[in-house]
């Protein structure tokens, strides 16, 4: 549906987008993630034809955005970071203008707009000036503008910014709904949002694509390194003893991860020990059982209470931080190397 090939955008000396290549499939919701200044908005601007690219191509539904801009733009509805609203118009006038500019048949404009206003629930404010609307309503008018003409590709740059929780839920369900028969690309800082509404996630950092996968795969991939936090009511010595016995059955490579260094005694609560063990081993288990079962039973046999057992969840947030952090580090070293060469 949207093919981005080797996209490069250079601002003066800075490479805002650096060789970005990805494919967006039909009727899916894509989440575009990245730290500030990663090139999300720039990429979206290029895809929608608002900006030129220094190199590379963008194809929307088979139309190149640079070669056939009108055909390509007709396939896209775009909501930029700041909704492009004319403050001196009412939502109804604004949407009519957008519809006329998109060359929708005159007769069908009123009904089309009515439908969009209902979808985005702005019918009750349709005759008020946009400048008098709250931020949430402005945002929704912006989204409505992107929906005019029922374009197959909808691109939303941070669509839920500035909305109250109820509106966020409404917009999210609207986006999900749209994803059924549109291709939606959205960017967001809110990772839980991307996690809950997107079918696919694209993470970019410093203008480069560093991950392109489903949210499940991304978190699964990174869950392997995550840890289990355990708090038990006993001294450190005892805890180490129990754990050592429990881990004895493991191959040596796995055992290394559990070490007494991880254990910490918290004295003011009495004799309690907090320690960490890897939650997921190679097969997720010790001798076919979840490690949590084994820990609970091992301490139970010694009549020691397990006060707390909580997995450190590898959330998308962690994945995101890890991915973007490593890439910035690499980049940093690359920059250094380049400087040395010069």
């Amino acid at each position, binding site marked *: 549906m949207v093919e981005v090939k080797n996209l490069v955008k250079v*601002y003066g000396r800075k490479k805002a987008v650096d060789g970005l290549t990805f494919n967006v499939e039909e009727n899916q919701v894509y989440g575009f993630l990245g730290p500030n200044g990663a090139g999300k908005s720039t990429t979206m*601007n290029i895809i*929608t*034809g*608002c*900006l*030129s690219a220094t190199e590379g191509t963008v194809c929307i539904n088979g139309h190149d955005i640079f070669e056939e*801009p*009108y*055909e390509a*733009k*007709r396939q*896209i509805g*775009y909501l*930029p970071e*700041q909704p*492009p*609203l*004319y*403050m*001196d*118009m009412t939502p109804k*006038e604004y949407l009519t*203008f*957008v519809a*006329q*500019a*998109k*060359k929708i048949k005159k007769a069908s404009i009123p009904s089309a707009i009515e439908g969009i206003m209902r979808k985005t629930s702005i019918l009750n404010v349709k005759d008020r000036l946009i400048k008098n609307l709250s931020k949430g309503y402005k945002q929704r008018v912006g989204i409505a*503008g992107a929906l005019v003409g029922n374009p197959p590709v909808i691109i939303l740059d941070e669509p839920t910014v500035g909305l109250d929780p109820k509106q966020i839920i409404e917009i999210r369900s609207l986006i999900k709904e749209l994803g059924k028969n549109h291709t939606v690309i959205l960017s967001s800082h809110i990772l839980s949002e991307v996690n809950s509404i997107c079918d696919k996630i694209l993470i970019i950092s410093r203008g480069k694509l560093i991950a392109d996968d489903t949210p499940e795969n991304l978190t699964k991939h990174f869950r392997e390194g995550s840890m289990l936090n355990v708090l038990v009511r006993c001294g450190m010595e005892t805890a180490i003893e129990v754990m050592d016995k429990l881990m004895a059955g493991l191959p040596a490579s796995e055992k290394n991860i559990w070490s007494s260094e991880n254990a910490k005694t918290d004295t003011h609560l009495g004799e309690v020990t907090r320690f960490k063990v890897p939650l997921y081993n190679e097969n997720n288990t010790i001798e076919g059982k979840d490690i949590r079962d084994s820990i609970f039973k091992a301490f139970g046999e010694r009549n020691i209470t397990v006060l707390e057992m909580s997995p450190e969840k590898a959330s998308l947030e962690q994945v995101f931080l890890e991915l973007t952090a490593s890439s910035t580090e690499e980049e940093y070293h690359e920059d250094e190397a380049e400087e040395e060469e010069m």
Partner: protein
Amino acid sequence: MTAVLKRELASYFNSMTGYVFAAFTIFITGIYIMIYCFKNGYPYFEYVVKSIEFFYLITIPVLTMRAVAEEKRQKTDQLLYALPLSMTQIVIGKYLAMAIVLLVPVAELLIMPVILSNYGNVVMATSYSSIFAYYLLGLALAAIGLFISSLTENQLVAAVITFVAALVCYLMTGLATYIPTDAVSSYISFAVIILLIGIAVWFLTKNKYAAGGILIVAEAALFILYLFSKTSFEGLLHKVLNKISLFAITDNFIYGIFDLTAVVYFITVIFLFIFLAIQSMEKRRWS
């Protein structure tokens, strides 16, 4: 294009701008009609028209300052870029809206000679030809204002620069008489003007080679021209300024001459500045 035109018109008449522009011009027209036609009993409506030309200096910047600058500030230009419209359609849509707003006070001017003719003799031909020239002048200044508005994000800056540009046009002929007419000073003035154009090109394109190339070629051409015919440089600047001053060339219409070269000149200015405005908006996409 019609969508943009409709929107712009609505914006002029949903806000005060359109009404204030028309009302102010009509008010000024009334004052001059009172002075020239009623108090002094001149049968020449063209005097009124020539006098109110001056007020374009105030009204044109008000009319044109928002055109593109406001779009940039409110980031609505992103909508225009993303819509399936060409930059030419957008700019011409905006310009036509201005042309229509300009027409409102002109329409009032058109009725005036007819009304005045009830009370005495009015020279109809010169009246209408001067109104025609007045409208053309407004269109040319509006094109300049539109271009200037496309250079900045700030309405006020756009308004001030447009005012200065119009003021320079207005004072050009008056100041021209004080310019020394000998060949050397003419040559120097042209050399400086070329230098300024070169700097402007560099400033707008940020391209050293293009600006430098234009500068060197133009200066060299000027120098060669100067070497071969010094005499033609005498008083040249004066002549050129008189020929290109937008305000001065409406004079012929007032004297009852339908000056076709002037019409062509106005149309050229309009096209040039619309073209430049399109390029300036197009450039934003490339920066």
